[in-house]
């Protein structure tokens, strides 16, 4: 958490925006990260557009089975082939992509909301309360995440909503630690003292002044959480605990494909490529953002 400690607070809205503009310029200078951003946009647009076309009936229904046309290779009828139940792989990848991206984004948001609030409160209140709250984080940190997810899913049933919550609930820990460290460093700064002397309440100080000043590290860590959540979803698919059938996600499609890699390679190659490209872009974008938002790196 050292690097984030060195991050100077942006006191006013004005410097905040200029910091943002600087960061944007730096991000643009990182050609690969910039390209990755566009590629991600393209993937999202493709998935959403394809899904819309499929719902409109232009592209095939991803869940309609054709037991007389199973495991066909790519061709005119099925652009990327058909799967073991004769469903169109192309539209399944598009819909699966939407699900995977949604899991990635929503579960990350859940983790951000929990993590930021928890970390900020712990850091701001400090003292014994902070110690207790952080011991609780330590406890969860030391639990194997699969167990937590299995128990949560077993308790509440397996559906998309609980998948979001379960993944979000195990991913917030690092965020809480980062935010706590930031808030602890910030809360003794003059501008907070000033706000306090103006008679602002704790809630206002926390949410109007402290948290907005942690946005840099929060954004960076958030972009890095999305791919790791998507990976987690894939691991859960391996355990058979992902999205409920007949819907699919990239994780489920890759799992199905991995089982059939010797017989129908297309079932693995296409979804795995989509997944890998997306993760690759998200990771590079996250790294690029980190470089861009960390002014220390801008000196050269």
């Amino acid at each position, binding site marked *: 958490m050292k690097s984030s400690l060195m991050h100077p607070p942006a006191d006013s809205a004005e410097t905040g925006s200029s910091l943002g503009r600087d960061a944007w310029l730096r991000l643009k200078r990182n050609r690969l990260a910039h390209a990755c951003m566009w590629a991600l946009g393209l993937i999202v647009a493709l998935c959403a557009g394809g899904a819309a076309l499929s719902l409109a009936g232009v592209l095939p229904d991803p869940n*309609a*089975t054709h*037991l007389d046309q199973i495991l066909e290779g790519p061709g005119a009828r099925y652009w990327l082939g058909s799967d*073991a139940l004769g469903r169109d792989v192309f539209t399944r990848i598009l819909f699966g992509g939407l699900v995977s991206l949604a899991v990635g984004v929503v579960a990350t948001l859940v983790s951000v909301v929990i993590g930021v609030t928890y970390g900020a409160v712990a850091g701001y209140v400090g003292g014994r309360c902070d110690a207790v709250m952080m011991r609780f984080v330590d406890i969860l940190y030391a639990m194997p995440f699969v167990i937590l997810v299995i128990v949560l899913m*077993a308790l509440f049933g397996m559906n998309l909503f609980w998948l979001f919550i379960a993944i979000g609930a195990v991913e917030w820990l690092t965020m809480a630690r980062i935010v706590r460290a930031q808030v602890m460093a910030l809360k003794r700064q003059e501008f907070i003292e000033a706000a306090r002397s103006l008679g602002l309440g704790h809630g206002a100080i926390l949410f109007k002044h402290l948290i907005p000043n942690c946005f840099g590290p929060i954004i960076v860590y958030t972009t890095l959480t999305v791919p790791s959540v998507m990976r987690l979803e894939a691991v859960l698919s391996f355990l058979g605990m992902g999205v*409920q059938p*007949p819907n699919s996600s990239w994780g489920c499609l890759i799992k199905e494909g991995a*089982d059939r890699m010797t017989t*129908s390679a297309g079932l693995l190659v296409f979804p795995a490529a989509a997944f890998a490209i997306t993760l690759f872009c998200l990771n590079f974008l996250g790294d690029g953002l980190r470089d861009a938002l960390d002014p220390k790196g801008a000196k050269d």
Partner: protein
Amino acid sequence: MRPLVPLCAFLAALLCGCQPGDFARQAAGRGVLLLGNGSDPKALDPHLVASVGDSNVMEALFEGLITHHPEEDTKLEPGVAERWESNAEHTEWTFHLRRNARWSNGDPVTAGDFLYSYRRLLEPRLASPYASMLYILRGGKEFNEGTLTDFSRVGVRAPDDFTLVCTLALPAAYFPQMVKHTSWLPVHRGTIERFGGMTDRFTRWQRPGNHVSNGAFKLRSWRIHHSVVVEKNPFYWDAEKVSLREIRFFPYDTYTEARAFLGNRLHYTYTLPAELIHQSRGVRSEWLRTEPYYGSYFYRLNVERPPFDNPKVRVALALAIDRQAIVDSVTRANQEPAYGFTPPTQGGYLPPRLVRFDPERARTLLAEAGFPGGKGFPGFALIINTSEAHRAIAEAMQDMWRRHLGITGVRIENREWGTFQSQVIRQDYDAARAGWIADYLDPATFLDMWRERDSNNNTGWSHPDYDRLLAEAAVQPTEEARHAKLREAETILLTEMPVLPLYWYTRTYWLRPEVKNWKPLLLDHHNYKYIRLEP
């Protein structure tokens, strides 16, 4: 990149020196059989195991009164009992034990051992999962439930060291078939009691070195999630007929097992995924074995929940499933589409032909039940336990109901095994996937469970005529008359349709050509005594 190059070179150099060669062939040369067995055994105690994989290990270690014939399920292979006979009503059976049967520590196997074992299995405090198999003994059920405490009143006694007499609660001509089951295997009293009491579940007697058994093999090692290794038992009474020197059981996952087989690490796979079955028809047909298996794949419907309280709805759902398409395109292992519930056996019981694919009739029935074109049909959940194969079948059914009946609200809900099983037992489901593998070769093992309040019923369905017919069947003088009664009962079951039968199982696996005498068996209990390896 640079550090990778020397690393790869180092690894390559290290490995080229030790290429494994054909491990399975070498093992065959040493008389070592390598079997995939699906999962790790729960126990090596015949009174505590419950799964199919566990019972395979038990068959190697223990031998019952009557054991599995190497070629024909219907035939009886003498085990510890040399011969046996029954009275005319089939209620009292006398087994004459051979005098040269030995435990793996050299002790003789006596009728007292069997008496002790049956008592142990029925002791309520042992809480054996399969105790109900011995309820056929007179007083067995009462003793196990604790209402009878005097074991001498249970229908089994040993007049001398080599005679065992079983008195049954009801006439059963198929009793010798039942006796083959793992729950009837004996345990060694001295060993059990050296490491604890008769009913202690947790003792060290199952450990290598402590374990004593009476089968063709004895335990050499058991490593959790690694393997169970058994070796030839020199004290076995028929030891010169045993050709294998060692059997290793591996608990590999389906795909891991297939890769291990392809890498020459196994002689036999426990299962084979659908896509590999299809592929190996062309390329590896010399390994592929597909044979009928005495089991039924079906769905339970909870008849206490609307709309399944209406038999018309249940029948409509059953008629809208294209079983042939599922078998041909989804499971792909030559299973037979079920036209009844009980699988037919050659020259034995034939179920009534009442289950078929008839979407027209299904639509009519659904309309009669008040859901024309599926309109207003409430959403319901199909629960499955986690498995790629179950999921594919459920997805196919879901789409068939949508297409043929217009039912769109079907959800497939995946549960891992523990949750799944407890939901079924508590009857907390709408429709639940199920499979039933016979314990013994008789239709009773499939039909008894649908009696009112049977612990395996779990659908809430019952019918007084059904229960009456089963009771009548038990006392019929001939097999034909008995089968006729059973068929009548099954007709009631299938017109009411509390279950949706899908297909009758096949066993599909890879077997290396070195393994000889591995014959197709309906119950898939192989007598390892007769298996040979020819490298």
